[in-house]
């Protein structure tokens, strides 16, 4: 039976949803607004919302002091690289778990997920030492490797869920049609799993882009991505809110824009398989 929704109830629910939505978005909005203020206005009390002298000087100073584009490029390389490498490893892994499961497949999946429950700082020292010894500290390759490893469980889990929705008959038909394992994955499985693979890809780019613990601890200057770029403005000699906000705005802008344009794909992917 359909629920009886009165106009008043609908209005209340809509209002509550808007309030929650705005509350979630407010810190981002405030950061963006602050980035256009002077340092004095940024800490003024009471704060002004839009009636202040809008200025671009923070952005100019930030770009002058620390090269934005170099950090941006590092972020792009690290997030795209780790996602691509992750998919290359995870697609065959998820294929075997979804289509040739053994009695222990579920345990393997749980074990993979359990690695996400470990506080990263618990393994910081060994990984730092290994990276130092093999010369991976402050390199893009090092960060690609470490971000691939930490996001791999999520990639495998997501792909496993999508692959399970694909009827095994179709893959068997491909095998009967003479497809090798590689052709079966490339020509049949992947095109059918495109929505799932795309949302996995997007989500992992976002996760890798925003990852701060490893990117801050394993880089110094050369491979530093945008997270390090922001962190540079929370300096011990005092916070410069306007400049910090300008740096943050610059750092989150690309991913925010990408997320905005791909939100339909993301939502579709994340709810994939929930309803047949």
């Amino acid at each position, binding site marked *: 039976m359909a629920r009886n929704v009165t106009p008043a109830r609908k209005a209340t629910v809509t209002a509550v949803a808007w309030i929650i939505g705005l509350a979630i978005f407010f810190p981002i909005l405030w950061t963006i607004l602050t980035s256009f203020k002077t340092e004095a206005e940024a800490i003024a009390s009471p704060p002004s919302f839009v009636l202040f002298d809008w200025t671009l000087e923070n952005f100019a100073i930030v770009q002058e002091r620390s090269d934005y584009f170099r950090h941006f490029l590092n972020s792009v390389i690290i997030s795209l690289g780790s996602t691509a490498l992750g998919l290359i490893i995870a697609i065959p892994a998820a294929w075997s778990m979804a289509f040739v499961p053994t009695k222990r497949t579920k345990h393997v999946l749980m074990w993979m997920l359990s690695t996400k429950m470990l506080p990263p700082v618990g393994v910081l020292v060994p990984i730092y030492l290994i990276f130092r010894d093999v010369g991976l500290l402050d390199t893009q390759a090092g960060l690609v490797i470490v971000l691939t490893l930490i996001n791999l469980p999520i990639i495998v889990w997501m792909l496993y869920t999508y692959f399970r929705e694909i009827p095994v*008959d179709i893959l*068997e038909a491909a*095998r009967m049609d*003479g497809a*090798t394992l590689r*052709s079966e994955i490339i020509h049949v499985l992947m*095109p059918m799993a495109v929505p799932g693979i795309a949302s996995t890809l997007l989500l992992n780019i976002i996760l890798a882009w925003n990852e701060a613990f490893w990117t801050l601890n394993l880089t110094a200057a050369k491979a530093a991505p945008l997270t390090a770029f922001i962190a540079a403005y929370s300096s011990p000699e005092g916070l410069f809110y306007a400049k910090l906000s300008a740096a943050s705005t610059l750092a989150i802008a690309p991913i925010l824009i990408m997320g905005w344009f791909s939100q339909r794909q993301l939502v579709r992917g994340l709810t994939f398989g929930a309803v047949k």
Partner: protein
Amino acid sequence: MGQIRLDAVSKSFGDVEVIRPLDLEISDGEFVVFVGPSGCGKSTLLRLIAGLEDVTSGRIEIDGVDATAVPPAKRRLAMVFQSYALYPHMSVRKNIAFPLRMAGLGKDEQMRKVEEAARVLNLTEYLDRRPRQLSGGQRQRVAIGRAIVRDPTAFLFDEPLSNLDAALRVNMRLEISELHQSLETTMVYVTHDQVEAMTMAEKIVVLQEGVIEQVGSPMELYSAPRNRFVAGFIGSPTMNFVNGEEAARRGAHSIGIRPEHLTISTTDGAWQGTVGVAEHLGSDTFLYVHLSDGSGTLTVRAGGEYGAGHGDTVYLTPDPAKLHRFDAAGLRIE
């Protein structure tokens, strides 16, 4: 060539033995039907031949070559699945061309073969559609098209008509039979429908619980079933069985008589009974007769015009030449 030989092939899933060691020989160009109730192992047997499952023991030979360890892609067999298993992201044209593409054929050659298959299967106007835009019958024809383009050694059909409605099923049955006659390629066909088995097969393999109960032509199985299971499974409506005194008089534990081998009369006959239900099909009338001595209910086939109805007393006489006798173990007594 399309000769398949199974030599002591068995299959277990864990502790469950789905196929007990069995031997089977399928000759080149033969239409063989595996038939049996659900869970009898007929689909598993087909998948073993296809290579989609590995045998637990035994040996599979295709055209005299040991294929036991050969992957499905290399066995040169084509399979049509119950679910059609078409590639949803490809057009009909690309679906049919897929095996040719995998075989590395040139584009022109691919297209020529696809057009030819589409013409044979009346699919030409649907070549640019996606599978979801087709009806069930059309999808099944695409699946068959995908199988025939590659000129396989043998075709394997896994209950291909189960998802179709009754009228379409009869049509497709004829189409597949005609295809077999024109291609003269070995076909192995799995079904639980004994009518499909009887009408299509040159050789029927009746399976039960992973064991081959009998192998033979449809008429051999119909007229000389080796045991009670085969006798009851082949033929529609099913064979009548009578136990007890009547059977003992004929030196058997039970006797079987098909509905079409009983003569019905309103005046006299061997067994007296009353009609329970009369099913009028037009061409035939099936009467369900409760025997007066309480030994059971017999199905009788009478002419389409036969007038007896519920409660009428009738007399049945079996044709002695068509009586089947079985011993206590259910085996045929000659």
